Protein backbone atom coordinates (compact mmCIF):
# COMPACT_ATOMS: atom_id res chain seq x y z
CA UNK A 1 0.00 0.00 0.00
CA UNK A 2 1.37 3.42 -0.88
CA UNK A 3 2.60 5.65 1.91
CA UNK A 4 2.77 2.78 4.41
CA UNK A 5 6.14 1.42 5.40
CA UNK A 6 5.01 -2.01 6.61
CA UNK A 7 2.30 -3.07 4.19
CA UNK A 8 1.17 -6.58 3.23
CA UNK A 9 4.23 -7.10 1.04
CA UNK A 10 6.68 -6.56 3.87
CA UNK A 11 6.40 -9.92 5.65
CA UNK A 12 6.61 -12.13 2.53
CA UNK A 13 9.45 -9.89 1.37
CA UNK A 14 11.48 -10.63 4.50
CA UNK A 15 10.79 -14.36 4.09
CA UNK A 16 11.91 -14.21 0.45
CA UNK A 17 15.17 -12.49 1.34
CA UNK A 18 15.82 -15.07 4.07
CA UNK A 19 15.07 -18.00 1.77
CA UNK A 20 17.29 -16.58 -0.96
CA UNK A 21 20.16 -16.10 1.48
CA UNK A 22 19.83 -19.59 3.03
CA UNK A 23 19.37 -21.17 -0.38
CA UNK A 24 22.53 -19.49 -1.60
CA UNK A 25 24.48 -20.72 1.43
CA UNK A 26 23.17 -24.27 0.97
CA UNK A 27 24.13 -24.26 -2.71
CA UNK A 28 27.55 -22.95 -1.77
CA UNK A 29 28.18 -25.64 0.86
CA UNK A 30 26.83 -28.29 -1.53
CA UNK A 31 29.26 -27.20 -4.23
CA UNK A 32 32.12 -27.25 -1.78
CA UNK A 33 31.36 -30.84 -0.76
CA UNK A 34 31.03 -31.81 -4.42
CA UNK A 35 28.03 -33.99 -3.68
CA UNK A 36 25.98 -35.37 -6.62
CA UNK A 37 23.08 -33.28 -7.93
CA UNK A 38 20.53 -35.97 -7.33
CA UNK A 39 20.65 -39.15 -5.31
CA UNK A 40 17.86 -41.75 -5.42
CA UNK A 41 16.66 -43.24 -2.11
CA UNK A 42 17.96 -46.73 -1.43
CA UNK A 43 14.51 -48.36 -1.70
CA UNK A 44 13.96 -47.20 -5.28
CA UNK A 45 15.49 -50.39 -6.68
CA UNK A 46 13.32 -52.77 -4.64
CA UNK A 47 10.01 -53.88 -6.14
CA UNK A 48 7.61 -53.87 -3.20
CA UNK A 49 8.57 -50.48 -1.69
CA UNK A 50 8.64 -48.84 -5.13
CA UNK A 51 5.20 -50.18 -6.05
CA UNK A 52 3.93 -49.27 -2.57
CA UNK A 53 5.09 -45.65 -2.57
CA UNK A 54 3.94 -45.18 -6.17
CA UNK A 55 0.62 -46.75 -5.31
CA UNK A 56 0.10 -44.54 -2.25
CA UNK A 57 0.75 -41.32 -4.18
CA UNK A 58 -1.21 -42.40 -7.26
CA UNK A 59 -4.09 -43.58 -5.08
CA UNK A 60 -4.31 -40.27 -3.24
CA UNK A 61 -4.30 -38.39 -6.56
CA UNK A 62 -7.00 -40.74 -7.83
CA UNK A 63 -9.11 -40.00 -4.75
CA UNK A 64 -8.77 -36.23 -5.24
CA UNK A 65 -9.99 -36.41 -8.83
CA UNK A 66 -12.50 -39.26 -8.63
CA UNK A 67 -14.12 -39.08 -5.20
CA UNK A 68 -16.78 -36.52 -6.10
CA UNK A 69 -17.88 -38.39 -9.21
CA UNK A 70 -17.56 -41.98 -7.97
CA UNK A 71 -18.38 -41.31 -4.34
CA UNK A 72 -16.42 -42.05 -1.17
CA UNK A 73 -17.66 -45.60 -0.72
CA UNK A 74 -16.72 -46.99 -4.11
CA UNK A 75 -13.38 -45.14 -4.19
CA UNK A 76 -12.60 -46.21 -0.63
CA UNK A 77 -13.19 -49.92 -1.24
CA UNK A 78 -11.23 -49.91 -4.51
CA UNK A 79 -8.29 -47.95 -3.11
CA UNK A 80 -7.99 -49.98 0.11
CA UNK A 81 -8.16 -53.27 -1.76
CA UNK A 82 -5.47 -52.23 -4.22
CA UNK A 83 -3.26 -50.73 -1.52
CA UNK A 84 -3.36 -53.85 0.70
CA UNK A 85 -2.67 -56.02 -2.33
CA UNK A 86 0.25 -53.83 -3.45
CA UNK A 87 1.83 -53.96 0.00
CA UNK A 88 1.77 -57.74 -0.01
CA UNK A 89 -1.59 -58.88 1.40
CA UNK A 90 -3.53 -61.63 -0.36
CA UNK A 91 -6.55 -60.76 -2.53
CA UNK A 92 -8.88 -62.26 0.07
CA UNK A 93 -7.47 -60.13 2.91
CA UNK A 94 -7.40 -57.08 0.62
CA UNK A 95 -11.08 -57.30 -0.31
CA UNK A 96 -12.20 -58.01 3.26
CA UNK A 97 -10.16 -55.10 4.65
CA UNK A 98 -11.40 -52.79 1.89
CA UNK A 99 -15.06 -53.48 2.58
CA UNK A 100 -14.87 -53.69 6.39
CA UNK A 101 -12.77 -50.54 6.87
CA UNK A 102 -14.88 -48.51 4.46
CA UNK A 103 -18.06 -49.57 6.21
CA UNK A 104 -16.46 -48.74 9.59
CA UNK A 105 -15.51 -45.26 8.39
CA UNK A 106 -18.98 -44.81 6.92
CA UNK A 107 -20.56 -45.71 10.26
CA UNK A 108 -18.23 -43.57 12.39
CA UNK A 109 -17.72 -40.50 10.21
CA UNK A 110 -20.89 -40.35 8.09
CA UNK A 111 -23.41 -41.68 10.59
CA UNK A 112 -21.95 -40.73 13.97
CA UNK A 113 -19.99 -37.55 13.21
CA UNK A 114 -22.17 -36.45 10.26
CA UNK A 115 -19.35 -35.72 7.83
CA UNK A 116 -21.01 -35.33 4.40
CA UNK A 117 -18.91 -37.87 2.51
CA UNK A 118 -19.83 -37.77 -1.20
CA UNK A 119 -22.01 -40.61 -2.53
CA UNK A 120 -21.21 -40.03 -6.23
CA UNK A 121 -22.73 -42.71 -8.45
CA UNK A 122 -24.67 -44.17 -5.51
CA UNK A 123 -26.42 -40.87 -4.75
CA UNK A 124 -29.89 -42.42 -5.22
CA UNK A 125 -29.14 -45.24 -2.76
CA UNK A 126 -27.76 -42.92 -0.05
CA UNK A 127 -28.74 -43.99 3.46
Amino acid sequence: MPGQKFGPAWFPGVIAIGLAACGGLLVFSGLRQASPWLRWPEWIGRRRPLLGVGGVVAGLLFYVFAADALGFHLTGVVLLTLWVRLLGGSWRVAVVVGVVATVAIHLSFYKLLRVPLPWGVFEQYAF
Partner: protein
Amino acid sequence: MLFEALKLVFDPYVLWVIFASAAFGLFVGAVPGLTATMATALLVPVTFFMEPVPAIASIVTATAMAIFAGDIPSCLLRMPGTPASAAYTDEAYAMTLKGEGELALGAGLVFSVIGGLFGTAVLILAAPALAEVALKFSSFEYFWLVCLGLLSAVFIALSNPLKGIVSLLLGLLVSAVGLDNPAGFPRFTFGNAELAGGLTLIPIMIGMFAVSEIIRGVSRIDQPWVMAQAKIGNVFRGMWTLTKRYPGPVLRGSALGTAVGVLPGAGADIAAWMSYAVSKRFSREPEKFGTGHVEGIIEAGASNNSALAGAWVPALVFGIPGDSITAIVIGVLYIKGLNPGPSIFMNNAVSIYAIFMVFILADLLMLPLGIAAIKSAKQLLRAPREVLLPVILLFCIVGSFAINNSIFGVVLMLAFGLVAYLMEENGFPVAPAILGMVLGAMLEEHFIRAMIRADGDFLVFFERPIAGGLGAATIAVICVPLARRIFRTAA
Protein backbone atom coordinates in the same frame (compact mmCIF):
# COMPACT_ATOMS: atom_id res chain seq x y z
CA MET B 1 -14.12 -24.87 41.39
CA LEU B 2 -12.00 -27.96 41.98
CA PHE B 3 -15.20 -29.88 42.57
CA GLU B 4 -16.66 -28.65 39.28
CA ALA B 5 -13.48 -29.67 37.47
CA LEU B 6 -13.65 -33.11 39.12
CA LYS B 7 -17.23 -33.47 37.93
CA LEU B 8 -16.11 -32.66 34.37
CA VAL B 9 -13.37 -35.32 34.42
CA PHE B 10 -15.20 -38.10 36.26
CA ASP B 11 -18.11 -38.04 33.86
CA PRO B 12 -18.69 -41.54 32.43
CA TYR B 13 -18.41 -40.28 28.85
CA VAL B 14 -15.11 -38.46 29.54
CA LEU B 15 -13.71 -41.50 31.34
CA TRP B 16 -14.69 -43.66 28.39
CA VAL B 17 -12.92 -41.23 26.01
CA ILE B 18 -9.80 -41.29 28.20
CA PHE B 19 -9.79 -45.08 28.28
CA ALA B 20 -10.28 -45.43 24.53
CA SER B 21 -7.59 -42.84 23.74
CA ALA B 22 -5.23 -44.60 26.13
CA ALA B 23 -5.65 -47.84 24.21
CA PHE B 24 -5.25 -45.95 20.92
CA GLY B 25 -2.12 -44.18 22.20
CA LEU B 26 -0.52 -47.40 23.43
CA PHE B 27 -1.14 -49.06 20.08
CA VAL B 28 0.16 -46.13 18.03
CA GLY B 29 3.20 -45.77 20.29
CA ALA B 30 4.06 -49.45 20.23
CA VAL B 31 3.93 -49.84 16.46
CA PRO B 32 7.15 -48.51 14.91
CA GLY B 33 6.46 -45.82 12.33
CA LEU B 34 3.34 -44.52 14.06
CA THR B 35 4.23 -41.56 16.27
CA ALA B 36 2.63 -39.61 19.11
CA THR B 37 2.32 -36.54 16.88
CA MET B 38 0.61 -38.68 14.27
CA ALA B 39 -1.81 -39.92 16.94
CA THR B 40 -2.65 -36.30 17.73
CA ALA B 41 -3.15 -35.36 14.08
CA LEU B 42 -5.41 -38.38 13.58
CA LEU B 43 -7.42 -37.59 16.71
CA VAL B 44 -8.23 -34.01 15.69
CA PRO B 45 -11.00 -34.81 13.17
CA VAL B 46 -12.63 -37.01 15.81
CA THR B 47 -12.30 -34.43 18.61
CA PHE B 48 -13.95 -31.92 16.30
CA PHE B 49 -17.26 -33.32 17.42
CA MET B 50 -16.60 -33.53 21.16
CA GLU B 51 -17.01 -31.17 24.10
CA PRO B 52 -13.81 -29.22 24.97
CA VAL B 53 -12.69 -31.29 27.99
CA PRO B 54 -13.00 -34.78 26.44
CA ALA B 55 -11.48 -33.44 23.20
CA ILE B 56 -8.33 -32.23 24.96
CA ALA B 57 -8.34 -35.20 27.35
CA SER B 58 -8.16 -37.63 24.45
CA ILE B 59 -5.04 -35.92 23.08
CA VAL B 60 -3.35 -35.65 26.51
CA THR B 61 -3.95 -39.33 27.28
CA ALA B 62 -3.07 -40.69 23.86
CA THR B 63 0.24 -38.82 23.64
CA ALA B 64 1.36 -39.74 27.16
CA MET B 65 0.67 -43.41 26.47
CA ALA B 66 2.30 -43.28 23.04
CA ILE B 67 5.56 -41.80 24.34
CA PHE B 68 5.87 -44.59 26.91
CA ALA B 69 4.78 -47.33 24.51
CA GLY B 70 7.52 -46.27 22.12
CA ASP B 71 9.93 -47.99 24.51
CA ILE B 72 8.35 -51.41 23.93
CA PRO B 73 9.59 -52.07 20.36
CA SER B 74 12.88 -50.40 21.33
CA CYS B 75 13.47 -53.27 23.73
CA LEU B 76 12.07 -56.04 21.58
CA LEU B 77 12.78 -55.08 17.97
CA ARG B 78 15.56 -52.53 18.23
CA MET B 79 13.20 -50.08 16.55
CA PRO B 80 11.89 -47.02 18.40
CA GLY B 81 8.09 -46.95 18.49
CA THR B 82 8.19 -43.16 18.43
CA PRO B 83 11.18 -40.85 17.77
CA ALA B 84 11.20 -40.02 21.50
CA SER B 85 12.57 -43.49 22.29
CA ALA B 86 15.27 -43.41 19.62
CA ALA B 87 17.90 -41.99 21.99
CA TYR B 88 18.07 -45.19 24.04
CA THR B 89 16.85 -47.83 21.62
CA ASP B 90 20.26 -49.48 21.27
CA GLU B 91 20.73 -49.47 25.03
CA ALA B 92 17.33 -51.04 25.68
CA TYR B 93 17.88 -53.68 23.01
CA ALA B 94 21.28 -54.51 24.44
CA MET B 95 19.60 -55.08 27.82
CA THR B 96 17.09 -57.44 26.22
CA LEU B 97 19.90 -59.42 24.58
CA LYS B 98 21.54 -59.72 28.02
CA GLY B 99 18.28 -61.19 29.34
CA GLU B 100 17.29 -58.01 31.17
CA GLY B 101 14.31 -57.18 28.94
CA GLU B 102 11.94 -57.04 31.92
CA LEU B 103 14.15 -54.54 33.68
CA ALA B 104 14.38 -52.29 30.60
CA LEU B 105 10.63 -52.38 30.00
CA GLY B 106 9.85 -51.84 33.66
CA ALA B 107 12.25 -48.89 33.90
CA GLY B 108 10.69 -47.41 30.76
CA LEU B 109 7.24 -47.66 32.29
CA VAL B 110 7.88 -46.64 35.90
CA PHE B 111 10.15 -43.71 35.11
CA SER B 112 7.87 -42.54 32.32
CA VAL B 113 5.15 -42.24 34.95
CA ILE B 114 7.45 -40.38 37.36
CA GLY B 115 8.68 -38.02 34.62
CA GLY B 116 5.13 -37.41 33.45
CA LEU B 117 3.99 -36.56 36.98
CA PHE B 118 6.96 -34.22 37.45
CA GLY B 119 6.21 -32.37 34.22
CA THR B 120 2.54 -32.16 35.15
CA ALA B 121 3.40 -30.69 38.56
CA VAL B 122 5.52 -28.02 36.88
CA LEU B 123 2.71 -27.32 34.41
CA ILE B 124 0.14 -26.93 37.19
CA LEU B 125 2.36 -24.67 39.28
CA ALA B 126 4.17 -22.66 36.62
CA ALA B 127 1.49 -21.98 34.03
CA PRO B 128 -0.89 -19.93 36.22
CA ALA B 129 2.04 -18.04 37.78
CA LEU B 130 3.45 -17.24 34.36
CA ALA B 131 0.00 -16.13 33.22
CA GLU B 132 -0.08 -13.51 36.01
CA VAL B 133 3.06 -11.95 34.56
CA ALA B 134 1.93 -12.38 30.98
CA LEU B 135 -1.28 -10.41 31.60
CA LYS B 136 0.79 -7.25 31.43
CA PHE B 137 2.41 -8.15 28.10
CA SER B 138 1.94 -5.87 25.09
CA SER B 139 2.71 -6.45 21.43
CA PHE B 140 6.38 -5.68 22.09
CA GLU B 141 6.76 -8.60 24.51
CA TYR B 142 4.70 -10.91 22.32
CA PHE B 143 6.78 -10.07 19.27
CA TRP B 144 10.00 -10.98 21.07
CA LEU B 145 8.49 -14.11 22.60
CA VAL B 146 7.45 -15.37 19.19
CA CYS B 147 10.91 -14.56 17.80
CA LEU B 148 12.55 -16.37 20.70
CA GLY B 149 10.31 -19.37 20.16
CA LEU B 150 10.95 -19.57 16.44
CA LEU B 151 14.69 -19.18 16.81
CA SER B 152 15.12 -21.63 19.66
CA ALA B 153 13.36 -24.20 17.46
CA VAL B 154 16.11 -23.68 14.92
CA PHE B 155 19.15 -23.35 17.12
CA ILE B 156 18.56 -25.87 19.92
CA ALA B 157 20.06 -29.26 19.29
CA LEU B 158 20.09 -29.05 15.53
CA SER B 159 23.23 -30.11 13.76
CA ASN B 160 22.47 -27.92 10.75
CA PRO B 161 20.78 -24.63 11.75
CA LEU B 162 20.76 -23.49 8.12
CA LYS B 163 18.34 -26.24 7.11
CA GLY B 164 16.30 -25.44 10.21
CA ILE B 165 16.00 -21.81 9.12
CA VAL B 166 14.90 -22.83 5.62
CA SER B 167 12.25 -25.06 7.17
CA LEU B 168 11.11 -22.23 9.45
CA LEU B 169 10.90 -19.74 6.58
CA LEU B 170 8.85 -22.17 4.48
CA GLY B 171 6.45 -22.50 7.40
CA LEU B 172 6.18 -18.72 7.72
CA LEU B 173 5.52 -18.50 3.99
CA VAL B 174 2.62 -20.92 4.32
CA SER B 175 1.19 -18.77 7.10
CA ALA B 176 1.29 -15.71 4.82
CA VAL B 177 -1.20 -17.21 2.35
CA GLY B 178 -4.67 -15.69 2.33
CA LEU B 179 -6.55 -12.60 3.45
CA ASP B 180 -5.86 -12.98 7.13
CA ASN B 181 -3.09 -10.40 7.59
CA PRO B 182 -3.01 -6.97 9.27
CA ALA B 183 -3.71 -5.18 5.98
CA GLY B 184 -6.49 -7.59 4.98
CA PHE B 185 -4.88 -7.83 1.58
CA PRO B 186 -5.07 -11.11 -0.40
CA ARG B 187 -1.61 -12.70 -0.68
CA PHE B 188 -0.63 -15.74 -2.76
CA THR B 189 -4.28 -16.50 -3.48
CA PHE B 190 -4.10 -16.53 -7.32
CA GLY B 191 -7.77 -15.56 -7.36
CA ASN B 192 -8.65 -18.90 -5.75
CA ALA B 193 -11.41 -18.83 -3.12
CA GLU B 194 -9.93 -21.82 -1.21
CA LEU B 195 -6.63 -20.01 -0.82
CA ALA B 196 -8.22 -16.69 0.21
CA GLY B 197 -9.15 -18.14 3.59
CA GLY B 198 -5.56 -19.20 4.18
CA LEU B 199 -4.28 -22.78 4.29
CA THR B 200 -6.07 -24.86 6.92
CA LEU B 201 -3.47 -26.28 9.27
CA ILE B 202 -5.08 -29.58 10.30
CA PRO B 203 -4.94 -31.25 6.85
CA ILE B 204 -1.38 -29.93 6.51
CA MET B 205 -0.43 -31.51 9.85
CA ILE B 206 -2.12 -34.79 8.92
CA GLY B 207 -0.03 -34.73 5.76
CA MET B 208 3.24 -33.81 7.44
CA PHE B 209 2.95 -36.18 10.41
CA ALA B 210 0.84 -39.07 9.13
CA VAL B 211 1.12 -39.31 5.34
CA SER B 212 4.88 -38.73 5.37
CA GLU B 213 5.28 -41.51 7.98
CA ILE B 214 3.09 -43.82 5.90
CA ILE B 215 5.27 -43.19 2.85
CA ARG B 216 8.32 -43.98 4.98
CA GLY B 217 6.66 -47.12 6.34
CA VAL B 218 5.73 -48.28 2.84
CA SER B 219 9.27 -47.72 1.62
CA ARG B 220 10.42 -50.19 4.31
CA ILE B 221 7.58 -52.66 3.91
CA ASP B 222 9.89 -55.48 2.83
CA GLN B 223 12.01 -55.37 5.98
CA PRO B 224 10.65 -57.88 8.50
CA TRP B 225 10.36 -57.21 12.23
CA VAL B 226 12.20 -59.74 14.38
CA MET B 227 11.38 -60.04 18.08
CA ALA B 228 14.31 -60.56 20.40
CA GLN B 229 12.33 -61.96 23.32
CA ALA B 230 8.90 -63.49 23.22
CA LYS B 231 8.05 -64.08 26.87
CA ILE B 232 7.96 -61.22 29.36
CA GLY B 233 7.91 -61.78 33.11
CA ASN B 234 7.28 -59.42 36.00
CA VAL B 235 8.42 -55.96 34.93
CA PHE B 236 8.06 -54.37 38.38
CA ARG B 237 10.79 -56.48 39.95
CA GLY B 238 13.77 -54.37 40.93
CA MET B 239 12.07 -51.02 40.31
CA TRP B 240 12.24 -49.91 43.93
CA THR B 241 15.97 -50.70 44.04
CA LEU B 242 16.51 -48.67 40.87
CA THR B 243 14.61 -45.69 42.30
CA LYS B 244 16.72 -45.76 45.44
CA ARG B 245 19.93 -46.19 43.45
CA TYR B 246 19.33 -43.48 40.84
CA PRO B 247 17.31 -40.67 42.46
CA GLY B 248 19.61 -38.03 40.92
CA PRO B 249 19.22 -39.12 37.29
CA VAL B 250 15.44 -39.42 37.69
CA LEU B 251 15.17 -35.87 39.01
CA ARG B 252 17.67 -34.46 36.51
CA GLY B 253 15.95 -36.18 33.58
CA SER B 254 12.54 -34.93 34.65
CA ALA B 255 13.76 -31.36 35.16
CA LEU B 256 15.73 -31.16 31.92
CA GLY B 257 12.86 -32.79 30.03
CA THR B 258 10.36 -30.29 31.36
CA ALA B 259 12.66 -27.40 30.46
CA VAL B 260 13.21 -28.69 26.91
CA GLY B 261 9.47 -29.21 26.62
CA VAL B 262 8.78 -25.61 27.63
CA LEU B 263 11.18 -24.32 24.97
CA PRO B 264 9.28 -23.95 21.70
CA GLY B 265 10.13 -26.32 18.90
CA ALA B 266 11.96 -28.88 20.99
CA GLY B 267 9.87 -31.73 22.35
CA ALA B 268 10.12 -35.23 23.78
CA ASP B 269 12.55 -36.61 21.21
CA ILE B 270 15.16 -33.88 21.68
CA ALA B 271 14.64 -34.05 25.45
CA ALA B 272 15.47 -37.77 25.41
CA TRP B 273 18.63 -37.29 23.33
CA MET B 274 19.84 -34.49 25.61
CA SER B 275 19.04 -36.37 28.81
CA TYR B 276 20.75 -39.53 27.59
CA ALA B 277 23.88 -37.49 26.81
CA VAL B 278 23.73 -35.72 30.18
CA SER B 279 23.26 -39.03 31.96
CA LYS B 280 26.35 -40.50 30.32
CA ARG B 281 28.37 -37.36 31.02
CA PHE B 282 27.62 -37.33 34.76
CA SER B 283 27.39 -41.05 35.39
CA ARG B 284 29.80 -42.77 37.74
CA GLU B 285 29.99 -45.62 35.23
CA PRO B 286 29.98 -43.95 31.77
CA GLU B 287 31.88 -46.89 30.29
CA LYS B 288 28.81 -49.11 30.77
CA PHE B 289 26.64 -46.92 28.49
CA GLY B 290 25.80 -48.66 25.23
CA THR B 291 26.34 -52.15 26.64
CA GLY B 292 22.88 -52.51 28.14
CA HIS B 293 23.03 -50.22 31.18
CA VAL B 294 19.76 -49.07 32.71
CA GLU B 295 20.87 -45.63 34.01
CA GLY B 296 20.47 -43.75 30.71
CA ILE B 297 17.10 -45.38 30.06
CA ILE B 298 15.88 -44.16 33.44
CA GLU B 299 16.98 -40.58 32.88
CA ALA B 300 15.91 -40.27 29.23
CA GLY B 301 12.70 -42.23 29.83
CA ALA B 302 11.68 -39.78 32.56
CA SER B 303 12.79 -36.91 30.37
CA ASN B 304 10.64 -37.57 27.31
CA ASN B 305 7.44 -37.95 29.29
CA SER B 306 8.09 -34.82 31.34
CA ALA B 307 8.75 -32.85 28.13
CA LEU B 308 5.25 -33.73 26.99
CA ALA B 309 3.65 -31.83 29.88
CA GLY B 310 6.23 -29.03 29.81
CA ALA B 311 5.32 -28.21 26.22
CA TRP B 312 1.82 -27.23 27.39
CA VAL B 313 3.13 -24.34 29.51
CA PRO B 314 3.90 -21.90 26.64
CA ALA B 315 1.02 -23.35 24.61
CA LEU B 316 -1.58 -22.48 27.23
CA VAL B 317 -0.09 -19.23 28.51
CA PHE B 318 1.10 -17.61 25.26
CA GLY B 319 -0.36 -19.69 22.45
CA ILE B 320 3.22 -20.60 21.50
CA PRO B 321 3.59 -24.37 21.07
CA GLY B 322 6.34 -26.11 23.04
CA ASP B 323 6.51 -29.06 20.60
CA SER B 324 4.83 -30.42 17.46
CA ILE B 325 2.02 -32.01 19.47
CA THR B 326 1.01 -28.76 21.15
CA ALA B 327 1.31 -27.03 17.75
CA ILE B 328 -1.67 -29.14 16.73
CA VAL B 329 -3.33 -28.76 20.13
CA ILE B 330 -3.38 -24.96 19.87
CA GLY B 331 -5.62 -25.23 16.82
CA VAL B 332 -7.96 -27.53 18.75
CA LEU B 333 -8.03 -25.10 21.70
CA TYR B 334 -9.21 -22.28 19.42
CA ILE B 335 -11.86 -24.47 17.83
CA LYS B 336 -13.14 -25.39 21.28
CA GLY B 337 -13.31 -21.78 22.48
CA LEU B 338 -10.45 -22.33 24.95
CA ASN B 339 -8.36 -19.60 23.33
CA PRO B 340 -4.82 -19.85 24.70
CA GLY B 341 -3.42 -16.77 26.39
CA PRO B 342 -2.88 -15.55 29.93
CA SER B 343 -6.59 -14.94 30.48
CA ILE B 344 -7.40 -18.61 29.88
CA PHE B 345 -6.93 -19.24 33.62
CA MET B 346 -9.68 -16.70 34.40
CA ASN B 347 -12.10 -17.25 31.52
CA ASN B 348 -11.93 -21.04 31.37
CA ALA B 349 -10.55 -21.93 34.78
CA VAL B 350 -12.76 -24.98 35.32
CA SER B 351 -11.90 -26.53 31.96
CA ILE B 352 -8.20 -25.88 32.47
CA TYR B 353 -8.18 -27.48 35.91
CA ALA B 354 -10.09 -30.41 34.48
CA ILE B 355 -7.37 -30.76 31.82
CA PHE B 356 -4.69 -30.68 34.55
CA MET B 357 -6.52 -33.52 36.31
CA VAL B 358 -6.56 -35.50 33.07
CA PHE B 359 -2.77 -35.17 32.93
CA ILE B 360 -2.45 -36.72 36.41
CA LEU B 361 -5.04 -39.39 35.65
CA ALA B 362 -3.33 -40.30 32.37
CA ASP B 363 0.03 -40.71 34.10
CA LEU B 364 -1.47 -42.92 36.80
CA LEU B 365 -3.43 -44.99 34.29
CA MET B 366 -0.18 -45.62 32.49
CA LEU B 367 0.87 -48.14 35.17
CA PRO B 368 -1.93 -50.72 34.76
CA LEU B 369 -2.46 -50.09 31.04
CA GLY B 370 1.27 -50.06 30.38
CA ILE B 371 1.57 -53.51 31.96
CA ALA B 372 -1.24 -54.74 29.75
CA ALA B 373 0.49 -53.31 26.68
CA ILE B 374 3.82 -54.91 27.60
CA LYS B 375 2.11 -58.26 28.19
CA SER B 376 0.41 -58.11 24.81
CA ALA B 377 3.50 -56.77 23.02
CA LYS B 378 3.75 -59.94 20.96
CA GLN B 379 0.28 -59.41 19.47
CA LEU B 380 0.74 -55.64 19.10
CA LEU B 381 3.97 -56.04 17.17
CA ARG B 382 2.43 -58.62 14.87
CA ALA B 383 -0.04 -56.02 13.54
CA PRO B 384 0.12 -56.56 9.77
CA ARG B 385 1.59 -53.43 8.24
CA GLU B 386 0.14 -54.13 4.79
CA VAL B 387 -3.32 -53.73 6.35
CA LEU B 388 -2.53 -51.06 8.92
CA LEU B 389 -0.93 -48.48 6.63
CA PRO B 390 -3.71 -48.41 3.99
CA VAL B 391 -6.45 -48.20 6.63
CA ILE B 392 -4.68 -45.28 8.34
CA LEU B 393 -4.31 -43.62 4.95
CA LEU B 394 -8.04 -43.81 4.23
CA PHE B 395 -8.64 -42.46 7.72
CA CYS B 396 -6.30 -39.54 6.92
CA ILE B 397 -8.26 -38.80 3.75
CA VAL B 398 -11.56 -38.67 5.60
CA GLY B 399 -10.05 -36.65 8.45
CA SER B 400 -8.56 -34.04 6.11
CA PHE B 401 -11.85 -33.84 4.25
CA ALA B 402 -13.91 -33.49 7.43
CA ILE B 403 -12.26 -30.27 8.68
CA ASN B 404 -13.84 -28.07 5.96
CA ASN B 405 -15.87 -30.73 4.15
CA SER B 406 -13.75 -29.95 1.13
CA ILE B 407 -11.62 -32.10 -1.16
CA PHE B 408 -9.05 -29.28 -1.03
CA GLY B 409 -8.09 -30.62 2.42
CA VAL B 410 -7.04 -33.91 0.81
CA VAL B 411 -4.98 -31.99 -1.78
CA LEU B 412 -3.21 -30.11 1.02
CA MET B 413 -2.62 -33.35 2.93
CA LEU B 414 -1.03 -35.07 -0.08
CA ALA B 415 1.10 -32.07 -1.05
CA PHE B 416 2.44 -31.44 2.44
CA GLY B 417 2.87 -35.14 3.10
CA LEU B 418 5.21 -35.41 0.11
CA VAL B 419 7.01 -32.20 1.04
CA ALA B 420 7.55 -33.36 4.63
CA TYR B 421 8.82 -36.77 3.48
CA LEU B 422 11.32 -35.17 1.09
CA MET B 423 12.40 -32.64 3.73
CA GLU B 424 13.09 -35.27 6.39
CA GLU B 425 14.88 -37.59 3.99
CA ASN B 426 17.22 -34.70 3.16
CA GLY B 427 17.93 -33.57 6.70
CA PHE B 428 15.46 -30.67 6.90
CA PRO B 429 13.63 -30.90 10.26
CA VAL B 430 9.85 -30.37 9.99
CA ALA B 431 9.26 -29.03 13.51
CA PRO B 432 10.46 -25.48 12.65
CA ALA B 433 8.13 -25.41 9.63
CA ILE B 434 5.17 -26.35 11.82
CA LEU B 435 6.10 -23.68 14.32
CA GLY B 436 6.38 -21.11 11.53
CA MET B 437 2.92 -22.00 10.23
CA VAL B 438 1.33 -21.76 13.66
CA LEU B 439 3.12 -18.58 14.74
CA GLY B 440 3.49 -16.69 11.42
CA ALA B 441 0.28 -14.69 11.72
CA MET B 442 1.01 -13.86 15.36
CA LEU B 443 4.54 -12.71 14.51
CA GLU B 444 3.41 -10.37 11.75
CA GLU B 445 0.44 -8.99 13.65
CA HIS B 446 2.42 -8.14 16.79
CA PHE B 447 5.24 -6.68 14.76
CA ILE B 448 2.94 -4.36 12.80
CA ARG B 449 1.01 -3.38 15.93
CA ALA B 450 4.18 -2.67 17.86
CA MET B 451 5.65 -0.75 14.93
CA ILE B 452 2.57 1.48 14.75
CA ARG B 453 2.81 2.16 18.49
CA ALA B 454 6.54 2.81 18.21
CA ASP B 455 5.96 5.07 15.23
CA GLY B 456 8.47 3.18 13.12
CA ASP B 457 11.33 3.39 15.63
CA PHE B 458 12.79 -0.08 16.21
CA LEU B 459 14.63 0.97 19.37
CA VAL B 460 11.28 1.30 21.17
CA PHE B 461 11.12 -2.51 20.98
CA PHE B 462 13.77 -2.59 23.72
CA GLU B 463 12.34 0.16 25.96
CA ARG B 464 10.00 -1.82 28.21
CA PRO B 465 12.04 -3.92 30.68
CA ILE B 466 10.62 -7.36 29.90
CA ALA B 467 10.56 -6.66 26.17
CA GLY B 468 14.18 -5.52 26.35
CA GLY B 469 15.18 -8.67 28.20
CA LEU B 470 13.37 -10.93 25.73
CA GLY B 471 14.90 -9.00 22.85
CA ALA B 472 18.37 -9.45 24.30
CA ALA B 473 17.70 -13.17 24.81
CA THR B 474 16.57 -13.47 21.19
CA ILE B 475 19.75 -11.86 19.94
CA ALA B 476 21.79 -14.11 22.24
CA VAL B 477 20.09 -17.24 20.84
CA ILE B 478 21.31 -16.22 17.39
CA CYS B 479 24.74 -14.94 18.35
CA VAL B 480 25.97 -17.52 20.87
CA PRO B 481 25.94 -20.55 18.50
CA LEU B 482 27.38 -18.40 15.71
CA ALA B 483 30.14 -17.07 17.91
CA ARG B 484 30.92 -20.58 19.15
CA ARG B 485 31.20 -21.83 15.58
CA ILE B 486 33.49 -18.97 14.53
CA PHE B 487 35.55 -19.43 17.67
CA ARG B 488 35.88 -23.16 17.00
CA THR B 489 37.05 -22.71 13.40
CA ALA B 490 39.51 -20.02 14.48
CA ALA B 491 40.99 -22.11 17.28
